[in-house]
């Protein structure tokens, strides 16, 4: 007897293991690729948000407010149905989902970076300015190195949220962990609970691990200050 049979309904997952596993890998890909994209765009938006040029500040503010107040479902709907209509078509939904998740996550990254810069004591900037450093030097040599430490925990929280948000892309056309779980649950009506709990466990492996990392970093940072 297979030792896994102890848990009723687990055969629904093991029988569909290739689908399940490839779904998990797709979820990780979605999370990593859009995470990197959001990091890049978020950094640019955060830089614009604090720049001396007024039009950059205005643009960054509008970008942040507009995207943050739009439900993720709408953003992904836009990517699934409106973008292909505009001629953005890759032949599969996966790149479109990455665009959507990147766009949706980037303002949260920008806000996390901005709050990190906020957290640097004002005296640091005053000292840098008073010894004659310019805007770029103050930011690059004094503020950002200190802000980075404080930015990491909230950034990890953003990535945890991103991991969970990839499931919404799965509800559209991406064969990720959520859609694999939904498929198996629909297929095996007798094993719904086990299947969905297994899906939850795989999400938890990622999110709880990241959460632990955030907690450790946070403690280190608190000690450093």
């Amino acid at each position: 007897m297979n030792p896994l049979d102890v848990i009723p309904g687990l055969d629904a997952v093991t029988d569909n293991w290739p689908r399940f596993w490839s779904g998990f890998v797709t979820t990780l890909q979605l999370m990593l690729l859009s995470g990197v994209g959001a990091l890049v765009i978020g950094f640019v938006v955060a830089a614009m948000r604090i720049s001396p040029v007024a039009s950059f500040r205005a643009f960054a503010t509008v970008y942040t407010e507009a995207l943050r107040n739009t439900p993720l479902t709408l953003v992904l709907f836009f990517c699934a149905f409106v973008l292909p209509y505009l001629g953005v078509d890759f032949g599969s939904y996966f790149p479109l989902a990455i665009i959507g998740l990147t766009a949706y996550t980037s303002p949260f990254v920008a806000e996390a970076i901005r709050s990190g810069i906020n957290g640097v004591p004002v005296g640091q900037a005053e000292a840098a300015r008073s010894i004659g450093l310019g805007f770029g030097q103050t930011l690059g040599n004094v503020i950002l190195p200190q802000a980075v430490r404080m930015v990491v925990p909230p950034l990890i929280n953003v990535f945890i949220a991103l991991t969970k948000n990839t499931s919404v892309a799965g509800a559209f056309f991406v064969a990720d962990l959520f859609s694999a779980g939904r498929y198996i649950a629909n297929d095996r009506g007798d094993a719904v609970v086990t299947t969905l709990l297994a899906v939850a466990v795989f999400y938890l492996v990622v999110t709880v691990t990241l959460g632990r990392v955030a907690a450790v970093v946070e403690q280190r940072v608190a000690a450093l200050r």
Partner: protein
Amino acid sequence: MSTNVLYDAPGPVARRNSRIISVVGVVLVLALLGYVAYLLGRPRVSANGAVTPGVLDGSRWDILGDLALWRAIGRGWVATLRAAAIASVLAVVIGVLFSFLRTARSRWVRVPTTVVLEFFRGMPVLLMMLFILLVFSTGAFWAVVAALAVYNGALIGEALRAGIASLPKGQREAGLAIGLTPTSTRFLIEFPQAFRQMLPIILAQLVVLLKDTSLGYIVGYVELTREGLNRLGTYYGSRYTFTLFAVVLVVYLATNLVLSHVVRVVDRRTGRRGVVRTKGGLGGTGLLARAGRPNVASTTGEAGGAGVGAGVGGAAGDH
């Protein structure tokens, strides 16, 4: 802005440079918008030779005059608000319960609660909706409401716990010293302060909750997104997909921006009445901070990023 320490008050040269960069930036943005408008506006030729007028063509927007459309959108909006309101009330109640259990003195209560909280916070809310829908067969409305209530309740519970943990020890000690039981100290002294301290974060989370009701589109609860994009989309045909998307988007933006504004006003009004000390550097003396409060603008995404969250384990939020 002249008080910003990152750069000098701009002189004539800097002002000119800044203006030039601004103009270039505006031109770039306008060019991008113009290109998008061109993409939207150009007529489309389908494979069978039929020509559809561009999205900006008047014939694509004539349904805006249709009263039935606005009635349906209104219905969807009310359904969204209804789900959000019920879920919000339940989420706050569950959050308060969780925070009490999480800070209980008995380890037999505290540890299981911590595990349950981690479990609820770590999985996608959409998965929870699917679970409730399939396992409890509650119907789509209660699947949406219950999942949002439990999930956001867990987040609010963590925020409240962080609020209680950030109170100075003397608060509890004073309560015990005047003869209150540990439970009434928690209820009468610690909890009210923690709640007030965390109110902006809780409200910001409730705005996120409202946004998340749009997941009803996926699990089949007819709220604004599903009504507007799915039902009306089928009724009017794919020709009007973009129009309906624009309408739904504007309604969401208007609703959420108003609510976010209310949150910010509450944030400012509550002021610093709590006794939580902000550690040097965070909040109060920060570069861009206006007041020494957890920055709601930044906590809409992640509760406890700066200010209160630091040093007390930061309540992980969501967006």
